[in-house]
């Protein structure tokens, strides 16, 4: 039984309870009214019977006096009745209907005329009794009761009235109670629902995180291996350019495959949010226009690409190259969802995610975001798969057609960038992915320093220290630097590296791995810079969990080459460092 069903049944029992209560109250009121009416009738009947008895007694008493015309006696008899405060009027009439004796308390004189139909009038009881002796009618006694005093009448209604009031009060209290209970129940349900939602989101995020750690670990090892493979092949091709063309072709194919492998590990790292990002204050409008221009020929003629860029779009604090990759990944997914063509729309807008929105989701900070929405008119994603699509290696494409890493790259990258993404999909209608990129308040992109690219093979009067615990990578780096014309020294750890630094003041630059046993690259760099403030440091890493990356972004003034790298990439980065300030 779900919470909602329970709620419904409890609400129904609430309603039936309220109905039963209402029926009880109505029954009680009806009973009170019946009792009151019965009591009223009883009282009237009793009063009437009493009045009749009194009239008969008076009639008997006055018989002889009336017969013998003894007025004084009549007045005495009638006068005795004055003691009865309940009597309103008394009259004794002779055989001819003439009033012989009587009194009245009200202005209404006793009147034999209303004797003809003895009735209660205005709450008064009027009774008559014949005065007769041995069948001989001698006259009539008229007797009128006072109307029942208000206090006495009210007194009779006190008990049923009290019952009714208590019943109503009870009903009121119970229904108020029930309403309060219902309200509390509803609040509780809402809370439970919110908590369930939050728990589901937390579970999902924990799952993603553990998958991320796993893939990140694998990617790290793979990157080291790929660095060696790629580096060795690179060296082979450079140093033995005159070798047997067949050998060179095999080497190039091996290198191409290794490149693809490196690309895969990069996506894995992106998903696990462990790739080093270089966020800048990026112009999203320009990027979107640029990418849509690239996409049009790529997606083919059957798919139209529309771009809707809002005016005055903010800048976003984001790594542009990764954003481009993300949009391309989403566009590829859109294309695959529209085999018979359709339209792809990229929209941008400034949005504000408020507290209410942020509360429903994990990992969202309320604030200003630049929204990029990519909408296709494709097959859509069934609701039951929506939660899974961001998981790595999840794909709806046929085996071999997709890696299952596209959306996971997008997800990991956006989350790592402090953004947020939302997926809306309806089967048969299409899918919209909304990316929320954190707004940048910095105005412009930092201009990249112009780099004078050195030609490889030039000798140069510079000594570089390579620090790398993994022998294969160290050897490749050493060879690569030699190839680039540097003098190279190498160390397999922080301790030897510092010794070499002290012994060789000519070292101008240190290229160090980040993750090493005992002392990591960051700490080594700090110590080295302490000893040699003029030293330039370049980190190389394939996987950065700590040390130089904080919250997924590089510290300022930190230079990094990402493993695996080619000799040319390494050369370019070193040139940039040497040309820069410091």
């Amino acid at each position, binding site marked *: 039984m779900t919470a909602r069903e329970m709620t419904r049944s409890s609400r129904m029992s609430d309603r039936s309870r309220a109905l039963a209560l209402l029926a009880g109250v109505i029954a009680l009121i009806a009973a009170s009214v019946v009792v009151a009416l019965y009591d009223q009738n009883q009282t009237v009947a009793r009063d009437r019977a009493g009045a009749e008895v009194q009239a008969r007694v008076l009639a*008997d*008493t006055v*018989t*002889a*006096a009336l*017969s*013998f*015309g*003894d*007025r*004084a*006696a009549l*007045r*005495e008899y009638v006068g005795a009745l004055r003691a009865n405060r309940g009597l309103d009027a008394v009259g004794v009439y002779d055989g001819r209907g003439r009033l012989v004796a009587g009194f009245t308390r009200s202005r209404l004189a006793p009147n034999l005329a209303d004797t003809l139909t003895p009735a209660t009038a205005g709450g008064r009881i009027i009774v008559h009794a014949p005065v007769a*002796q*041995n*069948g*001989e009618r001698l006259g009539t006694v008229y007797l009128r009761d006072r109307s029942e005093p208000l206090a006495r009448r009210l007194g009779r209604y006190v008990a049923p009235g009290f019952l009714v009031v208590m019943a109503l009060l009870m009903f009121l209290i119970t229904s108020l109670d029930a309403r309060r209970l219902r309200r509390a129940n509803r609040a509780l349900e809402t809370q439970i629902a919110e908590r369930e939602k939050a728990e589901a989101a937390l579970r999902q995020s924990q799952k993603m995180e553990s998958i991320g750690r796993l893939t990140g670990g694998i990617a790290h090892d793979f990157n080291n291996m790929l660095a060696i493979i790629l580096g060795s092949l690179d060296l082979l091709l450079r140093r033995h350019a005159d070798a047997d063309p067949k050998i060179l072709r095999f080497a190039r194919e091996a290198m191409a495959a290794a490149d693809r492998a490196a690309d895969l590990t990069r996506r894995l790292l992106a998903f696990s949010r462990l790739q080093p990002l270089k966020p800048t204050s990026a112009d999203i409008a320009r990027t979107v226009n640029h990418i849509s221009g690239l996409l049009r020929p790529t997606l083919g003629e059957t798919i139209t690409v529309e771009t809707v860029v809002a005016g005055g779009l903010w800048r976003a604090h984001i790594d542009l190259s990764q954003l481009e990759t993300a949009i391309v990944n989403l566009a590829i997914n859109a294309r695959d969802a529209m085999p018979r063509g359709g339209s792809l729309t990229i929209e941008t807008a400034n949005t504000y995610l408020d507290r209410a929105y942020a509360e429903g989701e994990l990992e969202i900070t309320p604030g200003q975001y630049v929204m990029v929405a990519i909408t296709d008119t494709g097959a859509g994603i069934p609701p039951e798969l929506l939660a899974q699509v961001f998981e790595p290696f999840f794909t709806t494409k046929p085996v071999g057609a997709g890696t299952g890493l596209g959306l996971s790259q997008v997800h990991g990258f956006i989350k790592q960038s402090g953004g947020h993404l939302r997926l809306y999909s309806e089967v048969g209608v299409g899918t919209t992915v909304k990316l929320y990129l954190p707004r940048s308040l910095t105005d412009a992109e930092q201009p990249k320093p112009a780099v004078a690219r050195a030609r490889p093979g030039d000798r140069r009067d510079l000594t570089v220290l390579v620090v790398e615990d993994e022998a294969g990578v160290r050897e490749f780096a050493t060879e690569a630097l030699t190839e680039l014309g540097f003098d190279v020294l190498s160390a397999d750890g922080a301790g030897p590296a510092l010794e070499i630094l002290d012994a060789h003041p000519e070292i101008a630059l240190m290229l160090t791995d980040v993750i090493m046993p005992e002392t990591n690259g960051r700490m080594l760099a700090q110590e080295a810079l302490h000893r040699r403030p003029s030293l330039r440091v370049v980190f190389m890493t394939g996987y950065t969990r700590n040390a130089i990356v904080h919250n997924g972004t590089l510290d300022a003034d930190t230079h990094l080459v990402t493993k695996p790298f080619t000799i040319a990439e390494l050369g370019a980065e070193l040139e940039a460092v040497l040309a820069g300030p410091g």
Partner: protein
Amino acid sequence: MRVRARPMTASRSLPRLAVVLALLCPPAPAPAQTALETAVKATFLYKFAPFVEWPASQSVPSAPFAICVIGKDPFGSALDRAVNGQRVGARPVVVRRLSVAAPDSPCQIAYLGGSRTQSVREGLGLLRQAPVLTVTEDPSERGIVEFTSAGGRVRFRLDDQAAAEAGLTISSKLLGLALSVTPRKE
């Protein structure tokens, strides 16, 4: 039933009925009765009837109800006028004037006026066991009913014991109205 014993006051006697009108007349000596008093007494004679129960033998429905005036007759035509058209139950009321009383006199009510041939005492003696309501006016020779005058009004005393001897039952209502009652012996 209450036994009356009340003083009469002039202020409570309003001059509406004939009985009360008597008050306005100058008091007259007892033997010389006024015409009004006589008329009232004549009326009283038949008015006693409903309040008295005669033995069953006397209650023959077809026979007239007889009021007898024995001896001296003070009423004259006043009595005839008073009983004219009156009935006791279904029985018409008749007036019989007798010179002497006898135990079998056909009377239900008998007014004993007395005469030379038969004094009131003798008449009462003869009627003692008879089912006849005897009425007298002589304080020394009392019948079952004795007319008297009190406060200028015609009143009566009742001898319930004598009624019992005669086999009559007097209604308590009438006993209540009497000036005085000689109670029955237990």
